[in-house]
């Protein structure tokens, strides 16, 4: 008989695995297509905005599209196919904000939707802001050090 540790190891080794290559190729094409769409939109927006604004509009457009597709129940079908292809672009972030919002409406707008909207967005915001601040501190310290020396 196995010990539970040996069994868990054995299961890890023997269980069927995801088809990595097939999934990755699908992720490549869908993810690439989303980025290419973003780039095309960027050139369109450049006609009436500066570069910084155009970049923001691209993000907002992709988020809005992902949010709408999530609401229609189409996004999860695409994501089942595409995996990282829809998760890695900003569309994955948008889906992780929109899906709990729709799902937890029944528990109320304040205590249901309110906290649950941040289930995935919360950690992303927290650690991006933290790492940004950490970078700022290091940068500031280096600047002070430069002035002193």
């Amino acid at each position, binding site marked *: 008989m196995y010990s539970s540790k040996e069994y868990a190891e054995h299961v890890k080794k023997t269980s069927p695995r995801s088809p990595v290559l097939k999934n990755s190729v699908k992720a490549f094409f869908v993810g690439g297509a989303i980025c290419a769409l973003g780039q095309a939109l960027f050139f369109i927006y450049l006609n009436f905005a500066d570069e910084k604004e155009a970049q923001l509009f691209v993000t907002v457009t992709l988020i809005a599209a992902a949010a709408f597709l999530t609401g229609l129940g189409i996004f999860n079908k695409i*994501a089942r196919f595409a995996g990282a292809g829809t998760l890695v672009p900003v569309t994955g972030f948008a889906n992780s904000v929109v899906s709990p919002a*729709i*799902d937890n409406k029944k528990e109320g707008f304040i205590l249901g939707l309110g906290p649950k909207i941040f289930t995935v967005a919360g950690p992303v915001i927290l650690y991006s802001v933290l790492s940004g601040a950490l970078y700022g501190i290091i940068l500031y310290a280096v600047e002070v050090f430069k002035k002193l020396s």
Partner: protein
Amino acid sequence: MRKTKILKNPPAFISYASAAGYEEHRGPLGCKFDFHDETDLFGSDSWEKAEGELAHTVLSLALKKGGISEQDVEVLFAGDLQNQCVASSSGLYNFGIPYLGLYGACSTCTEALLLSSLYLETSEGDTIAAAVTSSHYCAAERQFRTPLEYGGQRTPTAQWTATAAGAFLLGRKESGVRITEIMPGKMIDSGICDASNMGAAMAPAAADSVFALFSDEKHDISSFDRIVTGDLGDTGSFFLHELLSKDGIDIRDKHEDCGLLLYDRNAQDVHSGASGCGCSASVLAAHYLPMLEKRELKKILFMSTGALMSPSSVQQRIPIFGICPAVVIESD
């Protein structure tokens, strides 16, 4: 040594019913369910309420099929997968039957049958006990995994929680299908912390129960027509056969898994198979009991498998404990 308990007054199935949702209706057993709902909502407006309605519907159907009034039912054993088993309590409260809520994860169906038989062992006359278990894909997904609209891929070992329920009324009957022996299951530490490989997490518990049962000389694999596990799925069944082969037991000819019967895995993308309290309950009520009643099967071993865990326990890396109680069902 763990042994089965042979019942002195083996109770008979007086009536039973099954109900299921959209996907289950499109599976191989689809047309055998007594009731199904295309919207999965069962007339309510949230998934949690829908599961309550599902449990309500299935018990109503069992009462109706047996021509029994709810006043004649002395006790109700019921359970589901929702937090604090609210689907069973909210769905079944208005029957006014004395209630004992159960949680055995996906093994609850066998647990309820086992306890109903024990209850009837000590009662006399025309006592009737009811066992109801349900599960709902959307409610379970929300509670244990991710929001329904969330887009993600699942591993090949993941299982699909069945939107299904089964209700059983047990009591005294001259002849029919009976529960003749019962055996509770030991909790077995699988060492697995991956909530998307529950089949493998439950296989050691199923192996332990099968081993305990057949190391008792009064049982013989050949005397059973089927050995039915609850929801091991494809992956779990593989590991069950492998674990048993180490003990020199081969059940592959007799073994069937409810989780592999409920869906057509070629056409329906459910990965390893079905799971949930309603999986084994609905398959027993829709598939095995009619076969036993028609004498197509004489004797089966019915053992629902459960994975004992919560979303927090998985996040804290507490291993998943498997459990597998068993009942022997015979027709006479």
